[in-house]
């Protein structure tokens, strides 16, 4: 059993994103996740030990650390260093305006950028919980006009990158079919779940999700799909 966040010589492995960090660092230089400083729980494989987790009397299916499995399956693929490129402010938010010489009383400034389709909702995912603590509360814009298929997973080529070892590299997808939002699980190892108000129900295949629904990827990452 591999112990996460443990030093081996002069470096340690981040339990959230798998990046190697210098021994002197206490926070991952790649994803900002906290260094897990304790032994892994005997019955819980490599879960994030910074957050106290319970050892359940009747444990839910143990999360699979899929990194090793996927590495074998995708042998030969070049290693891509993790870059949390999607955790940025919306590219549509930086709007340059030239100052007018005199205010025009008939001018109605558009609060939304011109490329945003009128009448369509804007969405974002907000992190409710995830092993990389610095991401909790952060918002990721969901822009179907830019990305018709919003891919969600651990690897960097996804639209929404989730630095969580229990999330599959290609975990799920969000699409818009007219005014309907559809969530599809991509046969992820640890599952995709939708909160129905009482518990998290597992998604097999595709399911419609309403705005403001709470979703879970794997066992450690919970997001809310919010509409503005």
């Amino acid at each position, binding site marked *: 059993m591999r112990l996460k966040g443990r030093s081996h010589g002069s470096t340690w492995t981040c339990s959230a994103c798998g990046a190697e960090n210098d021994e002197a660092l*206490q*926070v991952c230089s790649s994803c900002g996740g*906290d260094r897990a400083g304790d032994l892994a729980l005997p019955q819980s494989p490599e879960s994030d030990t910074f957050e106290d*987790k319970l050892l359940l009397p009747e444990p839910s299916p143990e999360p699979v650390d899929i990194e090793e499995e996927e590495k074998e399956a995708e042998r030969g693929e070049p290693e891509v260093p993790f870059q949390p490129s999607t955790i940025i402010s919306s590219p549509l938010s930086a709007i340059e305006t030239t100052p007018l010489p005199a205010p025009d009383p008939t001018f109605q400034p558009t609060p939304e950028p011109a490329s945003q389709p009128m009448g369509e909702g804007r969405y974002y995912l907000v992190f409710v919980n995830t092993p990389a603590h610095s991401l909790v509360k952060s918002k990721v814009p969901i822009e179907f006009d830019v990305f018709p298929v919003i891919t969600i997973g651990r690897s960097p080529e996804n639209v929404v990158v989730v630095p969580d070892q229990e999330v599959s590299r290609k975990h799920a997808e969000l699409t818009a079919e007219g005014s309907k939002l559809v969530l599809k699980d991509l046969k992820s190892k640890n599952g995709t779940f939708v909160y129905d108000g009482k518990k998290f129900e597992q998604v097999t295949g595709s399911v419609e999700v309403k705005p403001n629904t709470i979703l879970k990827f794997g066992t450690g990452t919970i997001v809310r799909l919010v509409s503005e």
Partner: protein
Amino acid sequence: MGRPLLESRNVGRAVFVGDTHTAVDVTQTVLDKYYEDAELVVFLGDYVDRGNTGVENLGLIASMFLEDPRRVIMLRGNHESPLTNPYYGFLDEVTEKLGVASYGGFKEFFQAMPYAVVVNDYLCVHAGIAASLDDVSEIAALPLPDLNPDNPVAFQLLWNDPRDMIEGFVPSVRGEGAFYYGSDVTQRFLQDNSLKGIIRGHEVVDGFREDMDGKVITVFSSRYHGASAGILVLDHEKMEQVRI
């Protein structure tokens, strides 16, 4: 001890200390620099685990309490429990320093500890509010001693987390029986109980974090996480965040 909800207090100057997790130097600094001027020092639990000086840390706080029981409050955290001690280090530490048989004494001590107190209209509790808890006074009716604790409300007081982007209580990734509490239920609880806010620990933060427009303050006073150990100093109406 022996009461789950301690008597409410109104003081001129109080200090609130979050999870220390064996950081006896933080506790010593509180004692050396802040204890003298404070009418009340509230420790929010999690004295042991995640380090190897839990016995000393617990002992120092307990000695402060014994010297002046009106001035020191020791609340229970989720790590004052056999649920965590075998896995996060305290059982090993006790075994090494005192022999495994001594752990029984700590278990008995932990299961009788209080969960909460209201100080200057702030609810002080290790983790937060619980589903089906409407009135602060209900905490007084929780059973003691409680080993893990097993009562579901008591358990949540020690395990739940605030999340202002949700409503109601949502199952937490920490495990069965733990929840996230949202803005709506928190606001309602504070209003119904005439409280100003909640002061709690439980989550790793760089000293402090505020949620729900400052109504929920998390304070974390450890060293193991590699960031700041914070304490809160309440001086009449003014709440100051101090890094140790």
